[in-house]
């Protein structure tokens, strides 16, 4: 039986608390705070303590979904990205760039957030960009 601890950063908000995943036989079993992390110093909020639950949740989405005729259908990443790009282009051409808004997330990295705002401003052409940590 194998047991290891994998350090990570909590993905629930922008604070960036250090956590350790307890991995038993390749499966994440629980989350504990990383004691030597400079941000949270061995403390966590209730969301951080339960971080492992969504990773193993049976409700977790594993493929992109496209809504067709009112219901979500499983799709490949290529299909989903093509569909999104086509629709964004159509909306931009018909209603103008300010009809589009982009909401990004603390669950992705700083760099990905930077890319998202660059995409919003430079590619779509709007300043309608916001972040979940500001809600």
């Amino acid at each position: 039986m194998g047991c290891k601890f994998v350090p990570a950063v909590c993905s629930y908000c922008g604070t960036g608390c250090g956590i350790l995943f307890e991995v038993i036989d390749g499966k994440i079993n629980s989350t504990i705070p990383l004691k030597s992390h400079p941000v949270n110093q061995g403390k966590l909020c209730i969301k951080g303590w339960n971080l492992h639950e969504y990773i193993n949740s049976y409700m977790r989405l594993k493929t992109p979904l496209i809504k067709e005729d009112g219901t979500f259908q499983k799709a490949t990443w290529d299909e989903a990205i093509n569909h999104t790009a086509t629709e964004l282009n159509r909306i931009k051409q018909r209603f103008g760039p300010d009809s589009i808004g982009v909401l990004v997330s603390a669950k992705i990295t700083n760099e990905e957030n930077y890319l998202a705002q660059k995409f919003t401003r430079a590619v779509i052409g709007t300043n309608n960009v916001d972040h979940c940590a500001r809600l």
Partner: protein
Amino acid sequence: MDIINQVEQLFIQNKIDIFLGYKELDGHLIPHGFTPDNLDELKELKVSENRYSLEKIATHLSEKDPDLKIGIIARDCNQRALNLLYTWKQLKPENIEIVNVNCCPSPLKPHPDCSYLEPKQSGEFKKEHGIDYNAEPDSLMETFNNNERFSRWMYEFNKCIKCYGCRNICPVCFCTECSLEHASLIEPGTLPAEVPIFHLVRATHMAGRCIDCGLCEEACPSHIPLRLLYREVNDIVSDVFDYKPGEGMEKSPFTIIGDDVVLEPKPMDFQIQGEK
């Protein structure tokens, strides 16, 4: 290093299947399970100044495999927790091998953490804000009158953000069903926490249970002096029953469960089985 040889011998003599110690990863000393499959890795075995509840990890492992033989690095507090877990039938003493190490100060607490070396402490917040009961540890409970003590404790409890960290990190919290998750007692998803119900439920459950490791107070984001609270509770247990949790293999006076305690898997496992 001496410990490494000790652990290697335990592996060679087939006394353990896994050893819970610490190793360094990206500059952090984190807990790690060393196995005989990878003996070279044993060179990285270290003693951490940061205390993690290795015995709690051991209970997680024996939930999956009740016959797994586990070796553990143990300070005094780990040893007390193990004794208590044995008496509550959460771990089998014949399956646990201990490698003792010294109690030592940690970066979080610049003093030894062992209750036999350290007097009762009040919380960090109090120290920072000039209300220091540390000079005379008994002063909070003796010098101050009931009303002052009551308002002080209520103030401390009101800071609670209900993270459940004190329960989650506690090496001797193992109940499958927790009173703190009982919806009619503690309403889920509301803040402030039910003051003082939340804290006093936990405090009463710590009677005859708390081995005074202080991990709860270290994990509390609101700096509630939990260690002091649980020590006060256990002083009563000590006075009335002459029982100190974890000191030996004596059963708690509050033992109400019988010999046949079955470790049930956590609800999460059922969810995963239901997948697909």
